């Protein structure tokens, strides 16, 4: 009987396969769990640092995911998933903001094999978390009137003003975005170290 030789080449393309989507879904679920836990604890006290802290914790997990999949579109799809998650809580506007920023992130990650480059990843991921933070600020900015109306029933206006100072003044918002970016950047750098120490050493990816 003639033996037929079947040789397989590994493809390096930007085409997503089902297994990439499944990997994306599983890792995003983990990151969503972290976002939910930190969000419940830090909100809205840690508006300044909440985003940064989440980004720091999720950074290494994101790094593993992006190294495993390594194809263009990771940040956009992750943004979509996060946005859809928020839709379930009633925040449809988050989906819009996150999608827009998702596209911007993809532009930042333009090029070949950028998802395996730690520095580029850090930038793209940083931007992703900036958009996450901006989302968090929106209800308080847009629905200030409603919030004020209800809370005015019980507190003194001055106390309230003091509290809301953080969420409205542009300088505070910018500071929050910076915190998120820095947290994400640090998370990615920590992720790079952990990736080398564990994932690459054990040849998991």
């Amino acid at each position, binding site marked *: 009987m003639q033996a037929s030789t*079947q040789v*397989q080449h590994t493809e390096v393309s930007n085409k997503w396969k089902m297994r990439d989507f499944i990997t994306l879904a599983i890792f995003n679920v983990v990151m969503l769990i972290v976002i939910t836990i930190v969000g419940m604890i830090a909100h809205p006290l840690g508006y300044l640092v909440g985003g940064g802290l989440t980004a720091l914790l999720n950074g290494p997990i994101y790094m593993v995911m992006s190294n495993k999949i390594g194809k263009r579109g990771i940040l956009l799809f992750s943004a979509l998933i996060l946005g859809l998650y928020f839709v379930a809580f009633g925040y449809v506007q988050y989906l819009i903001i996150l999608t827009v920023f998702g596209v911007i992130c993809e532009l930042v990650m333009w090029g070949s094999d950028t998802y395996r480059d730690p520095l580029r990843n850090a930038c793209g991921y940083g931007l992703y978390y900036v958009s996450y933070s901006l989302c968090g600020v929106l209800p308080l900015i847009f629905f200030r009137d409603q919030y004020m109306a209800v809370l005015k029933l019980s507190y003194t206006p001055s106390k309230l003003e003091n509290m809301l100072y953080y969420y409205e003044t542009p300088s505070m918002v910018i500071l929050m975005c910076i915190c998120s970016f820095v947290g994400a950047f640090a998370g990615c750098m920590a992720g790079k170290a952990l990736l080398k120490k*564990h994932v690459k*050493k054990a040849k*998991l990816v």
Partner: protein
Amino acid sequence: MIALNGVTFLYGHDEEETGVRGVSLSVQAGECAVLCGRSGCGKSTVLRLINGLAPSFFPGRLTGEVLVAGRNPALLAPEERTQRMGVVFQDPRSQFFMDHVREELAFSAENLGFAREDMLRQIAAQAQLLGIAELLDRKLSLLSSGQKQRVAIAAASVLAPPLLILDEPTANLDEKATQAIVELLLRLKHNGTTIVISDHRLHAYLAVADSFICMEQGEVARSWTREAFARLSCADLRPYGLRHPDMTAAGSTGQAASLPVDAPAFLGRDLAFRYPRRGEELDGINLALPKGQVTALIGDNGAGKTTLGKMMSGLLRQRKGKVLDRHTALSASRRRALSYLVMQDADYQLYADSVGNELVLGRRLDDTLRQRAYEALDAFGLSELRDRHPASLSGGEKQRVTMAAAYCSDAELIVLDEPTSGLDADGVLNVAAWARKLAEAGKTVMIITHDRVLTRLACDQVVELKRKEAQRL
């Protein structure tokens, strides 16, 4: 039905040439073949070749010919492959996509776009055939492991494929559940399904298997017919590393003599626990774990063995009753401080970047600890693996690392949860030897297991946990 001719498959690229070489085997239609061999011998690779995942899903170089019902499985279209073969994996956690049993059974058919009435009819028929009709409306997360595997087999066979492939289906199951699975396979075989199984526990399949094919280091070593295999003694199987119900260690088992009444021991008095949602309950448990000895905790799946193990080691706080060290009551946190639980899945408990670091994790490295670590590396055969990352090791090696870490720790009570599931014969004998080594080092060892061989080889006393009312399986 299945024919492999001179097949060589090597994973990955050039450096590590793992895989199978020159494999030729055949399975006739309607027969059942069992693949066996040591861990890492290539059984899973052969299964992957048969179901076509190698080379399409697992990249590698393939030479030779693989034919399933005359076609190359890797070249089949998705619809064809799904209808020609059903595959059941070892871990139910990662093969279920849905919440409820009925939907899980329907998943393959839904993917293929079958008509609704046909699907419902087929599901009902298959559930009837496999005896799971009463489980159809239950939630998957509330089923026992045995029930989950039966559902998995039903889901894989709902489209009545002519070939069914099972990869270590009984690894996590006790004897009763294993019997139930074999029963199921018999029914499917009577219907004409060809079955290929890979497993370590071989004698359970005597009722359904027609041939046993043994692999060694990527090649086919021997094959036996059912009758020939049944006649083999433990000694005949030893060189191949296969498990046998009569396994004994090379030397004596060193059972301890019966103890005086007031010997030092960890005692559990009138312990009770209940999981709020699942309704599993432990009540009025009395238990004595003599120090420096190995105690086996046996009982059916779901009787509460793991719960009791977690209680004794302080991971769970008991609702009633006390745990005592001789006469002093121990709080849950105190118990946690002096015990060490080795979980069934070693992946959950390996954190460091090398085996050496894993053994001393989290502690200050002084000379005594260093000495102990070297001892442990030698005793558990890990010296060559010292600098390897734990996550790159095989299942059996990972198990060794967690047990070596237990040896190094200061814990007095060591609980091993199902340490031999998925291990080959060498693995089982090693676990028995190390459990005794831990006991000789003065630790109290409690092994939760449903493996009778391990119980016989390693344990000084056996405690059996029975469920109060029998649940319908």
